[in-house]
């Protein structure tokens, strides 16, 4: 008998994490950015819970996504019978003006998430970040406790090994749950291909350009690409030396802009 292949193993781990989250963290919700990663989580949740997504799915909306994103959201929410909750983020004028301009959309989402947690009292939110996306995300835990302000105390993260996760937190603390932490960008696309998971058409090249990472339309730029099918995307990524988030302007404005966003609560 051959051993499990890499996607089977990643899938099994993520299903395990989602089932732990569902059983041990209540109330629980999930953030859906409508991108390829969190859409893959929805698919994995349907695997874990035999066809249903048993928690509310929240979109933190800035009303700045591209129209294709909203179309895709509404189609999938209906087809998969999601308990979708769209939450409007506070306006840009309300966030820290010392942040560089492209980081302010992220700060709006951070603020939107804080309000969501305050108003709906979630103990846990499932978030689709991965270690390989960004070097500070690489340092995350799968179950990561945050204060109500969302602060990430990188110096004192709880020990996490052998499938033991921190699921009990005191009042005022919530958990960010990261079931895709060990997946890479190519893993996600190979899984999309294998499972035939629907995704937003913006990822496919049109007129020589495609989006590799989906963010707000004013701060995200498409990359030059002819990859118009999934196998072509996978081949392109296997060969590229460009980082995934190169099109996300907020990441590179200052050396520490991403870490500053994350320690103050960004995903």
């Amino acid at each position: 008998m051959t051993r499990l292949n890499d996607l089977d193993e990643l899938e099994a781990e993520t299903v395990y994490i989602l089932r732990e989250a569902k059983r041990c963290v209540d109330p629980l919700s999930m953030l859906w950015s409508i991108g390829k990663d969190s859409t893959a989580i929805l698919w994995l949740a349907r695997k874990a819970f035999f066809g249903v997504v048993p928690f509310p799915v929240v979109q933190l909306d800035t009303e700045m996504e591209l129209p294709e994103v909203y179309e895709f959201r509404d189609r999938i929410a209906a087809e998969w019978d999601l308990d979708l909750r769209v939450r409007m983020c506070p306006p840009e004028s309300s966030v820290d003006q010392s942040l560089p301009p492209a980081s302010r959309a992220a700060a709006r989402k951070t603020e939107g998430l804080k309000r969501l947690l305050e108003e709906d009292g979630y103990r846990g939110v499932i978030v689709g970040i991965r270690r390989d996306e960004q070097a500070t995300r690489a340092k995350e835990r799968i179950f990561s406790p945050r204060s109500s302000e969302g602060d990430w105390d990188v110096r004192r993260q709880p020990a996490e090994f052998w499938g033991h996760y921190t699921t009990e937190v005191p009042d005022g603390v919530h958990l960010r749950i990261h079931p895709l932490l060990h997946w890479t960008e190519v893993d996600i696309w190979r899984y999309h291909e294998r499972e035939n998971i629907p995704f937003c058409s913006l990822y496919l090249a049109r007129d020589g350009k495609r989006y590799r990472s989906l963010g707000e339309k004013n701060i995200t730029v498409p990359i030059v690409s002819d990859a118009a099918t999934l196998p072509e995307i996978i081949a392109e990524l296997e060969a590229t030396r460009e980082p995934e988030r190169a099109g996300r302007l907020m990441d590179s404005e200052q050396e520490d802009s991403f870490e500053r966003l994350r320690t103050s609560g960004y995903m």
Partner: protein
Amino acid sequence: MVRPLRIVFAGHVDHGKSTMIGRLLHETGSLPDGKAAELEAISRKRGVPLEWSFVLDALQAERDQAITIDTTRVWFRWNDRRYAIIDAPGHRELVKNMLGGAAEADAAVLVVDAVEGISEQTRRHARLIGLLGIEQVVVAVNKLDAVGFDREIFAGLESEARALLESAGIAVAKAIPVSARDGDNLVAASPRTPWYAGSTLIGALEALESKGDDTDGPLRMRVQDVYRSGDARIAVGRIDSGTVKVGDAIVATPLGSAACVRSIERWNLPASGTARAGESIGLTFDLPIFIDRGDVIGHTDDAPISASRFRAVCFWLDARPPVVGESFRVQCGPSVARVTLRAIHDAVDSSSLAPLSADAVEQYATVSLELETRTPIPLDGRAHGMRPSRIVVLRGSEVVAGGVVDTIDSSVTLFATAHLVTRPERETRNGHRGAVIWLTGLSGSGKSTLAMALERRLFDTGSTVFVLDGDNVRGGLNRDLDFSPVDRAENIRRVAEVAALLAESGAIAITAFISPMASDRAIARQAAGAGFHLIHILADLATCEARDPKGLYKRARSGEIESFTGISAPYEGPTDADLVVDTSHAGIDVSTEQLLAYVIGVTRL
């Protein structure tokens, strides 16, 4: 595709782990475009020479202090094989973080500074690698440029490192002379070490293998949860080891419920009759057995031991030492047990290997903890020839130790002296069988009223009978318990044990407790054995609330009583009741008659 080979870089702080990984990524062409230029700019800003470690040390605090604070994982590809490199911090205070990364590794690279030599954390990490069961280790002697690429210095450190790892039970695969900052012997053979003919670091990594996946071991699936789908109950979990097939005879430890596998449940996949180690699946069974989170499913002839006392070789992570008599929580995946520390053995400093006193176990010592469980937990022990269970020890919510189970004792350390009077003799004298008549139902459903009426009727017909209810145990036997979930479960367990003793003495014990949780009732059934009868006293919530004989619902509704069953705490309606008595529709006399007829029937000799 096979999964990437996972390699942890371990060793003392500042011996160059992150630098070696950063440079290795550069040498293998794995860094994204512009990264080298970005590093140069960041390094210049800080007034330091080009710092490869900044690829991984992305946090500002890490860059400012030039140390790694937390574990990172990076991926690269070389000669069509994928690698996941885990960078672990080398600082003493950060062993907890190191453990998180190292626990999942297939192999380790132990980095040793040629100038400083084998240091405190080098020794500690070597020990930890051994405890984690990592069998493949490569030694990289770094900063050889700082000692003029001296062959003798390398040879001396190589043999010292080999001896160290051998003492931790590990045979070193290769030792390599390296200068990480300049890239010597990472990917290309260095002209500066003409005396060295062995492989480069990447060559050594290419020769490593992935850990086996334990498919050949005994079946172990720790149940995470039980889902209902129509009438079916699906036990879900990830298979730790072994293989399961439809039709297999299984047993769920610790309760010992046995059944056969009816189906293996997966979503959106063609049906398959087998599942193996590593898979997350669901199982259904041919019998409605009781299964709950934390139970272990194994084959009937090859199940784990339900441990009541065991020893585990642990890495003690906390600054406050363990104290004999102290209570902890032990977790093994979803299985949890409350334990009491009974003894501390073989405490040693994990770096110097100097013995430590049992009453002063230092942080990061290795120690063998002898633990007694208050509730049994299914485990496998190394001393029993099994792949050992790996446990996490918690004090409150803080992880204070991780370890592997060594020896297990399943028998309670009591020696029961055989009675000279047998249960059948007692039952013959009483004229009926001993039994536990366990009434469950919402507050106000009529349990106590029926229990007392039944006791009167049975007594009047000559039976030996006694009612256990809240009032006669809460004031005495259980006066040390409060109404927290843990203590409520303990309350039920003690009542079940007392009821079982009464039944053993030939009496009919009637209990009247809400006992809302299926798990508690299962423990009661387990304690009492064959003479246990679960009776569901059924009345809908509205009826119970209207009766409200003790005014409790009113107080619960006003928030005066927290977590009140039916209002603010769940009642898991039994699916395994031996009799249902519906008191919403029948009066007390009719219900008593129904109950009496049942009890007389099941206790008849």
